[in-house]
């Protein structure tokens, strides 16, 4: 049988189209699972928003202990391991000196409070997250409903592209089995939240598991009153939106174009 080039290409084209159609038809579907989509029921107590954002008012933190309390609350709530050395450090929310949190915005005449107090930094849940763009498995993704940059630990392959991409160093890699950490080995601080496993990247999730049951993030609860303000930036009447509109706030490294959702108030008084 002979076939010219034109005929061959036509035949190949048609069969590949048929092939593509066939995979859609042959998709296996267990009839029992049709119940699942109709069966999803959202919790009425859950806190929802279009764009979760946080304002960190550093003037409300008077002592370093108050800052440490916030860090401890978060890390306890999420079973974050502490190996006691910087190489294996895992951090969701942590302390950073002003110059490291806001590089190029330092000057020698800043107030003692700003110069000496560490700043609370965490994942910025960016509007255009660099980590999400580089993730090859979509293990980290931006939630469409509320803008939280979320981690799917089940999908993470531990390539650490996201850590290279994040301009804020908000991501930590589990070089070691977190359950072997001295602070988790004997007793897990929160038995309702999973640990992670060796070989995955983790970070702050704005406490999605707490929002889902109508609670504010753990850091917000542990902070002094008004220190951390959490709310919906898309809602004109929310506290965060009012603060961001009315007062001068700064964000970390705005020049890199990621659009952080964490805003900082660093002024010495209300009119700063």
């Amino acid at each position: 049988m002979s076939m010219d080039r034109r005929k061959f290409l036509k035949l190949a084209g048609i069969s590949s189209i048929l092939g593509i159609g066939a995979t859609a038809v042959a998709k296996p579907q267990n009839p029992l699972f049709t119940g699942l989509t109709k069966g999803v029921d959202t919790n009425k107590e859950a806190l929802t928003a279009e764009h979760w954002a946080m304002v960190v008012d550093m003037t409300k933190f008077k002592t370093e202990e108050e800052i440490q309390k916030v860090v401890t609350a978060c890390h306890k709530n999420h079973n974050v391991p502490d190996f006691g050395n910087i190489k294996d450090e895992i951090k969701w929310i942590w302390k950073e000196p002003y110059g490291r949190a806001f590089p190029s915005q330092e000057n020698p005449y800043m107030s003692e409070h700003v110069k000496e107090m560490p700043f609370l930094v965490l994942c910025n849940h960016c509007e255009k997250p660099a980590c999400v763009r580089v993730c090859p498995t979509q293990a980290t993704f931006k939630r469409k409903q509320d803008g939280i940059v979320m981690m799917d630990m089940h999908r993470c392959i531990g390539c650490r592209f996201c850590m290279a991409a994040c301009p804020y160093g908000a991501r930590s890699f589990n070089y070691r089995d977190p359950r072997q950490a001295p602070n988790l080995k004997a007793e897990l601080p929160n038995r309702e939240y999973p640990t992670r496993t060796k070989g995955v990247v983790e970070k702050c999730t704005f406490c999605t598991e707490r929002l889902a049951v109508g609670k504010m993030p753990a850091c917000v609860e542990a902070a002094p009153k008004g220190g951390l303000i959490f709310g919906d930036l898309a809602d004109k009447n929310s506290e965060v939106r009012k603060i961001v509109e009315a007062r001068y706030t700064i964000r970390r490294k705005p020049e890199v174009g990621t659009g952080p959702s964490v805003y900082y108030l660093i002024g010495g008084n209300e009119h700063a």
Partner: protein
Amino acid sequence: MKLYDGGKIFIGLIIFVAFAAFPFYFNVGKVNAKPEPKTDTPAIQEWEKQNGKKQCVESKEFMRTEHMQLLNNWRDSVVRDGNRGYMSDAHTKRFNMSLQNECMRCHSNKKKFCDECHNYMAVKPYCFDCHIAPKEEEKS
């Protein structure tokens, strides 16, 4: 036809067969115990007392064959879509889609419930590398 070194060959063959068949006669008579997952935890008994029967999220037959798929669906629903409530056909109750906090609340006997079958089938799911298994008393 003459077989050279017949004795050595046959001895060698016998040794070989004995060696290769070792797993078979070693296990003769030792029938592997059938897995018997237990659903007799206090939480399940309490449920049974109130409702008159044992009833998991879905039917027993469904859970037996499809629990892994169900858990995958739950995982995707919670992590990717943020939906945590599950309404099943078998109940009128809302379930929190959580392995650690919902499944294991009733099935607090991971060793007798999960591991029993998984070990028998030699499957090693890594759920509990991260998720925290309920505390169980060591009984020996």
